[in-house]
């Protein structure tokens, strides 16, 4: 383990982002994911059914297509379930953390100083389940931004309020 020698701060005493307790998305959000997946699979299923209906050769081998389709569906559910379980966010005093990832586990940290603005989106399905999506914009471009889906709408609103408040305060202190 390499140590910094040119500063007096003990690095091991700094707050550790990786040990922050994360809030998982609301369990209702899983239902939204399932509904979305079902719609997606339904569309593909209709397409496949249409092909088997028209084409003689595929009709003879329909069980292969059905099998592949089922495996694909199971795979999607498995992947999304895994990614859903991985998701989590935390609002710390000076930054916001978000952990996600389908295969690789990615943690993104945005210092509150650096947030340009905050958006709260509600989709059609989300509104039915009273959930919202928080989106933080920075000057670093889309890859470094955070988009947290599936937060209960009341909580999302209060986080947005808190972020907006802290943005104003930070601006004040820096200009003074």
């Amino acid at each position, binding site marked *: *383990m*390499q140590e*910094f020698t*040119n*500063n007096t*701060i003990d*690095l091991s005493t*700094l*707050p*550790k*982002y*990786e040990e922050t307790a994360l809030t998982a998305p609301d369990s209702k959000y899983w239902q939204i994911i399932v509904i979305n997946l079902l719609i997606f699979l339904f569309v593909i299923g209709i397409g496949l059914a249409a092909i088997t209906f028209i084409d003689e050769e595929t009709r003879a081998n329909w069980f292969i297509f059905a099998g592949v389709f089922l495996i694909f569906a199971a795979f999607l559910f498995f992947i999304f379930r895994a990614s859903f379980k991985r998701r989590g966010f935390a609002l710390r005093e*000076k*930054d916001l953390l978000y952990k996600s*990832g389908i*295969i*690789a*586990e*990615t*943690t*993104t*940290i*945005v*210092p*509150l*100083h*650096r947030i340009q603005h905050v958006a709260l989106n509600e989709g059609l399905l989300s509104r039915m389940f009273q959930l919202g999506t928080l989106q933080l*914009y*920075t*000057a*670093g*471009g*889309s*890859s*470094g*931004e*955070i988009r947290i889906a599936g937060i209960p709408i009341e909580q999302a609103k209060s986080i947005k309020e808190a972020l907006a408040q802290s943005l104003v305060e930070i601006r004040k*202190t*820096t200009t003074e």
Partner: protein
Amino acid sequence: MSLDFSEPQRQSAAGILINGAYIVQRFVRAMFIPLALFIFKSNKIALLYTALGLVVVLVVSLIYGYFYYRKFTFYLDTLKQEFVIDKGVFGRKNLTIPVEKIQQVNINQGFLQKLIGVYSLQIDTAGSDSKEVNISAISGQIAFALKEHLLNGEKETVATERNEDAPLAAQNLQKETPFIKIGPSTLLKIGLTSNYGQSVVLLLGFGYAVFHNIKEVLKAFDNDNGQVEQFFKSGITLISIGVLFVAIIFLLLATNVIRTFVKYFDFQISKHQKSLLISSGLLAKKNTLLHPNKVQITEVSQNYFQKKIGLFNMALKQAHSGEQQSDKEVRSNNLEVPGCSVNEKDEIMRMILSKLPADGNSYQPNFRFVNLPVLFWIVLPVIIYNLVFYFENSVRPFLPLAIGYVLVAAMMIYISFKKHRIIVSKDFIVKQSGIWDISKEIIQPQKIQSISTSQFPWHKSLDIGHLTLHTAAGNITFSYGNYTEIKLLVNWWLYQVESSEKDWM
């Protein structure tokens, strides 16, 4: 001489000519081939009509240019600190740019503008399309004074007592003694040693265009019997390939040198108050003034030849908007210093970063870094080649070439692995990478916008992970590092960003 920008004013009257000329130029460029063919093939009466048509186009362009000139006004709102442009003949457009959002101001002089003696002025901001904010014809005096106002507007409102110096400084702007000046001999060296890739692309494009155009012309005269292809086919023998090879290398170096001269002729950097004034160009003079603290990433690069003669390339990368941008626009946000010595490099870095990066801890990637490149560039091609080799006889003579390829590819991957590292000190993060051109990207922790770390499940037990630092001028990634170390570093950078008052711009 009154240089008051608070009242709406027009461009220089020569703008009529410039605006008109632009339209004619665009028209001629679009119609060039049809027109040329028409002139070749037609009789005298038709030619007369064409000439008449061209005159009409010219007149209409000039009239449009005149109205464009009448309707184009700009002024500086000193109260709100905003620069305002009103323009448009048919549709009106009102542009308002907050002075503090201005990143750089370019003053250019194209060929036609040089003849008339006017300049064009472009304003770059982090968010906007740079072409929007373009004043195409103003006198040099106004251009430089306006630039001065725009880039120092903030300071003026704070320190009014220094106001009296400002006009004086504006006059001196062009007379400042440059601290970096690149002479023709250095330019020649730069041309011979750098940017081969861009010249190759340029040559390929040019070669294709020539080939294509010759065919087009032949076709137009109904003479195309495949002579062009025939010529190339008959030309290919072993000796001619050798000659061709030498010729291509010569051509490549020549284009490189010419390009370098056109772009960077009379390259100068001078300090001006707290800004850097950069000017260069052979045919079209380009002047740029920028604030050092708006530079996000400072990149220093050097290849093997340049190392031998002690030259560095530098790029100063500024913030660009989050929207999708074309490569060209991103590049226009990057200021390049083509070739500088160690001392000059240090001088520029001291201006931008306020001090030189000290030695720090160096972090290298795990050897698994090479896995993916080896798979894609060596294992897969070898498998494909072997399969083809087995079924198809005609590829067998190329076996030595294939072996050569594998050796070269292996060496390149190894070098890229060896050179990939980050060096962290208290005030700087330096990322080194590259194969031929070894570049060092230098950022200060306060330029970080956000940080991402990521890990694949199968790397968990090996303690390997990836790091991305997002800045306003692009991302800096470090792959296959020790994840425990990366986490420690991230906590340290977060502490630095969140505890300091330093802003990123």
